[in-house]
């Protein structure tokens, strides 16, 4: 399915007496399935190399030398093949294979999580022997052994199909489960004392054709016949992987990956897969709250909305600001944008939390899709966060592109990433000097730039200059480096011929937020403020507003009285925590619209409980600008409400009327006012691959400005995100909480001597903003002069050090 593009040239074969057209290079098992003849299989998976392990797909094939049984997953269609999938010989083979597989398979279907949806059960019913002739004792192993925090392995059930091991090695690149032993003693297992530590381990549970691998979060929660399901989109990161949401008794119990050719190919990262747990958390906000004494008390919606409206109404529009919105659906983002920019009249609106990019870079530069980036033979320039840590499903696609499809990867990152081992050229500029490096790369300089050797730059330049499509993955690799640095690099890279940019902003529906105008200076539909009053609106703000950093800085200066948080937690999640804390102290009223009790919710005056992702219908926009459908599967807890209804009610409480009664009204308005959405049929978004929203805004390159001279004793801070942190939604998911790594300061070994520290020492790291103490570690992936910290949103955190108003943050490291 993956590698066989539609080719005009067909191959004529005969399947069960019918003439069938196969594609060039197509496997027989696929050709038959495409033509309505299903051949049973266990080991074959369309997204992985066929291995012919299980023999379930044996069919009778005559290629001119007489009929013989051949595994159809290992056989490429050839002209004039005559195939029998239902002949007596084929049936005898299927029957025999199943009898063999069942020899050692324990019949514990009643307690097995796979029971009811098990390919081995189903195929035994359809093709297998009715009775067993095996009366001897079966092989026994210790019943389920945990192979990591979320996956159990029951070796008795394994049929040695090699799917999990192939996935781990081929797809995820974490070859930590293997076959061991021989013959009857062959078993799948991890290495002793080494868990299957992979961000993608949940996929093995989904593809295991038996119940040998099961997921702890779903263990014994339900049986397949309890589950209702609906196809939807994962919203925890901006890839927008397609999923099915499965629930029972109004509770979401499982996400499964769905094979969308354009996006995730069926794979999910574990964080995505198990993120539903936070939605079921006991901690969920279920009622509106209002500050009372030290804490909050439950109140009614009319009281809470009334209090919020009062606070906003008495404040001049220029002193109202809103941060957040990436959690919301596109429709809710539109309604909130209309409320903020039309009814309230403020442009101090930003969906990003100071760790993103200006909208111009995302919407102004020529955009590329994931498929563009992964084109066979293309060049990928990684100029953003580590996809392995931030955008799991994208990482798997990129890995495949480099390994299988010959794409060339050039890394322009402040430190090594999960893809470094595959990169043809790895260039780590000093923080703040990315723009200079990008210019040198495009121009082909052979001088050393930004701490990178001229030879390395020259070699990478050759790869770009060789021609062919180039895709830049553009994002904020480090929150300690200003977005202006990335903007400067993007300006340089935009001069490459045939270049496209794939945004790697990571937060959920942040790209939807940009399209819906939740950014300063923008209106819904990728339009700039100043383009006039859109149809259906009555007014727009007169001046371009501030971004998150600007809003918080203004708040500290006493220029913001009411702050609205749309699912944002600046106190924990804003890179400059010091600034956020001061801003919260200075603002009169904080209104938080959220699903979980974050630090910022605890500090808010009015809390409006919102419905979460599986509780609302709507659409999602992924990092490509692809619109896909979100389905409602369960009802919100308590009286929590969808975000768009909260906005509409708040508008009414403010004496305005958004004239939006339903999600259809949103689309009617969007079609009328948005040039980029006018031609889009929202029903098309319901298709598996969704629909791309195209259209850019004008782009003017900006310069980053003068970089201050580096203090000889200081290091420049690099702040990166990891897959698992202590953010509120992961903390509320039992299977993901606690998976974050120990915080360390990573330095190049050469910097140790200069600082007089050695690996393992506790060091104090201080910046102009504050200080933290943690252990230091040597890391060859960190360039000299840089100090890398992972933001875990808890514990010693770079967010206690960062000053977002400067280009780079310098830190002093001393032995504590």
């Amino acid at each position, binding site marked *: 399915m993956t590698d066989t593009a539609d080719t005009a040239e067909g191959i004529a074969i005969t399947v069960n007496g019918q003439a069938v057209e196969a594609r060039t290079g197509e496997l027989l098992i696929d050709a038959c399935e495409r033509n309505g003849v299903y051949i049973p299989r266990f080991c074959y998976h369309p997204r992985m190399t066929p291995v012919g392990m299980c023999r379930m797909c044996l069919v009778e094939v005559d290629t001119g030398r007489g009929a013989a049984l051949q595994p159809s997953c290992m056989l490429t269609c050839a002209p004039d093949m005559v195939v029998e999938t239902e002949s007596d010989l084929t049936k005898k083979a299927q029957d025999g294979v199943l009898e063999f597989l069942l020899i050692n398979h324990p019949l514990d279907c*009643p*307690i097995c999580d796979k*029971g009811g949806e098990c390919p081995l059960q189903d195929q035994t019913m359809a093709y297998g022997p009715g009775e067993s002739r095996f009366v001897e004792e079966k092989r026994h192993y210790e019943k389920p052994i945990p192979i990591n925090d979320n996956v159990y392995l029951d070796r008795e059930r394994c049929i040695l199909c090699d799917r999990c091991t192939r996935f781990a090695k081929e797809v995820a690149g974490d070859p930590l489960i293997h076959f061991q032993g021989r013959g009857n003693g062959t078993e799948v297992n991890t290495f002793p004392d080494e868990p299957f530590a992979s961000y993608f381990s949940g996929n093995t549970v989904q593809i295991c054709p038996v119940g040998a691998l099961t997921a702890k979060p779903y*263990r*014994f929660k*339900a*049986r397949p*016949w309890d589950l209702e399901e609906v196809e939807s989109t994962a919203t925890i990161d901006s890839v927008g992987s397609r999923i099915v949401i499965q629930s029972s008794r109004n509770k979401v119990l499982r996400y499964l990956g769905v094979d969308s050719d354009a996006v995730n190919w069926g794979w999910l990262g574990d964080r995505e897969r198990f993120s539903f747990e936070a939605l079921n958390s006991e901690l969920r906000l279920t009622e509106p709250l209002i500050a009372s004494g030290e804490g909050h008390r439950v109140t009614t919606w009319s009281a809470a909305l009334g209090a919020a409206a009062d606070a906003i109404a008495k404040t001049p529009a220029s002193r109202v600001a809103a941060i957040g919105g990436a959690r919301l659906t596109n429709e809710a983002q539109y309604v909130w944008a209309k409320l903020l920019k039309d009814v309230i009249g403020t442009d101090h609106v930003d969906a990003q939390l100071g760790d993103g990019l200006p909208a111009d870079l995302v919407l102004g530069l020529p955009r590329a899709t994931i498929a563009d980036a992964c084109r066979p033979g293309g060049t990928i320039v990684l100029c953003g966060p580590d996809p392995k840590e931030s955008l799991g499903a994208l990482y798997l696609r990129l890995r495949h592109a480099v390994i299988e499809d010959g794409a060339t990867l050039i890394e322009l990152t402040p430190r090594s990433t999960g893809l470094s081992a595959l990169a043809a050229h790895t260039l780590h500029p000093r923080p703040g000097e990315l723009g200079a490096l990008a210019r040198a790369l495009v121009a082909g300089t052979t001088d050393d730039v930004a701490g990178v050797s001229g030879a390395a730059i020259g070699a990478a330049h050759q790869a770009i200059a060789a021609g062919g499509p180039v895709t830049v993955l553009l994002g904020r690799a480090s929150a300690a480096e200003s977005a202006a640095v990335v903007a400067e690099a993007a300006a340089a890279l935009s001069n490459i011929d045939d270049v496209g940019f794939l945004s790697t902003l990571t937060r959920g529906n942040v790209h939807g937020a940009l399209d819906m105008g939740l950014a300063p200076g923008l209106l819904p539909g990728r339009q700039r403020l100043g383009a006039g009053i859109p149809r259906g609106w009555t007014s727009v703000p007169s001046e371009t507003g501030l971004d998150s950093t600007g809003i918080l800085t203004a708040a500290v200066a006493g220029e913001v009285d009411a702050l609205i948080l749309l699912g944002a937690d600046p106190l924990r999640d804003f890179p400059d925590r010091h600034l956020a804390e001061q801003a919260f102290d200075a603002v009169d009223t904080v209104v938080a619209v959220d699903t979980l009790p974050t630090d910022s919710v605890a500090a808010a005056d009015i809390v409006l409980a919102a419905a979460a992702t599986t509780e609302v219908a709507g659409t999602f926009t992924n990092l490509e600008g692809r619109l896909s459908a979100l389905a409602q599967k369960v009802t919100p807890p308590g009286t929590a409400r969808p975000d768009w209804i909260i906005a509409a009610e708040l508008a009414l409480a403010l004496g305005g009327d958004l004239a939006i009664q339903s999600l259809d009204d949103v689309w009617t308005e969007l079609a009328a006012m948005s040039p980029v959405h006018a031609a889009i049929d929202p029903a098309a978004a319901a298709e598996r691959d969704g629909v791309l929203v195209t259209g850019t805004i004008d782009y003017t390159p900006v310069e980053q400005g003068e970089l201050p001279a580096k203090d000889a004793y200081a290091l420049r801070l690099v702040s990166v995100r990891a897959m698992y942190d202590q953010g509120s939604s992961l903390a509320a998911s039992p299977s993901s909480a606690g998976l974050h790594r120990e915080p360390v300061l990573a330095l190049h070994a050469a910097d140790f001597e200069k600082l007089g520290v050695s690996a393992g020492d506790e060091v104090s790291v201080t910046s102009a903003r504050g200080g933290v103490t943690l252990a230091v570690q040597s890391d060859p992936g960190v360039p000299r002069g840089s100090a890398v910290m992972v933001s875990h949103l808890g514990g010693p955190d770079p967010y206690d050090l960062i000053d977002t108003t400067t280009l780079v943050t310098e830190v002093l490291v001393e032995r504590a």
Partner: protein
Amino acid sequence: MGVLDYLRGFRVTFDKLFEERVTTEYPEEKSPKPDRLHGRHVLNRYEDGMEKCIGCELCAGVCPAKCIYVRGQDNPLDEPVSPGERFGYIYEINYLRCIHCDLCVEACPTQAITETKLFEFSFTNRSDAIYTKDELLVGDDGLPQNLPWEDWRPGEDVATSAWMRATSPAGDADYVGTVGWSGELGYGVRAPEVGQFGEDPEPPAAEVDPVDEGGHH
């Protein structure tokens, strides 16, 4: 039409006056129930007291009235509830819906659920009609519990799994009389009934005597 014609009209009535009566003083007096009558369920235990139910939900899946609610859970290793990895954590049957078809009994892989002969339900509220696991489980004596609103008669609460004992594995006549079931608390492994094919054997030879023939009464 004379007086005689009038009396002749009462002939049947007079005849019946002297016949033996077939009505009983229900509910004080009840007629004997057939062995395989389908009544309220019990959840059985093994001889060692472990619960037979493994929370597999097959009964819930097969139930045409959708009146069973089961959820499994990981068996606590230190204090297992049932043998194996999983046990029935929640088990509820709604008797406002159950049609006593016994499909659940057929579906159960462990013979955990069987039916007694108690069929007279009267509840004063709906939640009483939903029997929970605590109510369905047999007591420490292996006998069904006598819930306050239930009217059990002597002898009715023994042999509550008679149906199961009479059935051969897989419904295959070749196996009639072959023991293919596990022991039960209070009874041990019960002998098969011969059923339609022969004379009834001696009363089932129980390894452990049921506490007393009369059960609770």
